[in-house]
């Protein structure tokens, strides 16, 4: 018989009843074969009842222990949940601190990069200014040389 689909207590009750019934019928059969007396019936009955009592007591005790384990597990779960929550809170705080720190560093870095970029821009502007002045001077000199060449050519030609 497959007990995977029936409740736990049904399985226990079924098996227990089956055992009691089988033992009872077996006793009756043995009594038919070997004979017996009412005093023997009483004795066997008493032993059997005592055995059943012990088994039922053990099962009840087991149930209690199981219940105890369940409650302890429940308590433990609560405790673990609390600790986990505390940890999460702590982690959240740390994360926030880290983010703040990172934000500050990022801002400083950005400022530094900005000032370097500005410096570079200034340098470039100076460079182009100097270059344009230099080219102007060169242009003037070249014009003067051209003029002198033209004058000399004119003298030679004349």
């Amino acid at each position: 018989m497959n007990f995977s689909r029936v409740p736990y207590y049904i399985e226990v009750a079924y098996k227990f009843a089956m055992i009691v019934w089988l033992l009872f019928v077996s006793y009756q059969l043995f009594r038919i074969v070997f004979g017996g007396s009412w005093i023997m019936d009483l004795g066997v009955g008493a032993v059997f009842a005592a055995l059943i009592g012990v088994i039922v007591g053990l099962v009840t005790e087991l149930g209690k222990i199981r219940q105890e384990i369940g409650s302890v597990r429940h308590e433990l779960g609560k405790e673990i949940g609390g600790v986990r929550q505390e940890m999460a809170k702590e982690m959240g705080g740390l994360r926030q601190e880290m983010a703040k720190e990172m934000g500050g560093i990022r801002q400083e870095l950005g400022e530094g990069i900005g000032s370097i970029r500005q410096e570079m821009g200034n340098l470039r502007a100076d460079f182009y200014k100097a270059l344009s002045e230099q080219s102007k001077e060169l242009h003037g000199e070249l014009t003067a040389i051209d003029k002198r060449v033209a004058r000399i050519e004119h003298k030679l030609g004349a």
Partner: protein
Amino acid sequence: MLTSDDPLIDFLNKALYVSIIIFAIATYALFFHMLRLYGGG
């Protein structure tokens, strides 16, 4: 089938197994008892 994770079910399975064997022996004994009483044609 005879062993289970649950200790109570494990115990009941083994007790049931023993009970079935006792029942089988009793039936066997009754059969030969009847044979002795009414057998021998």
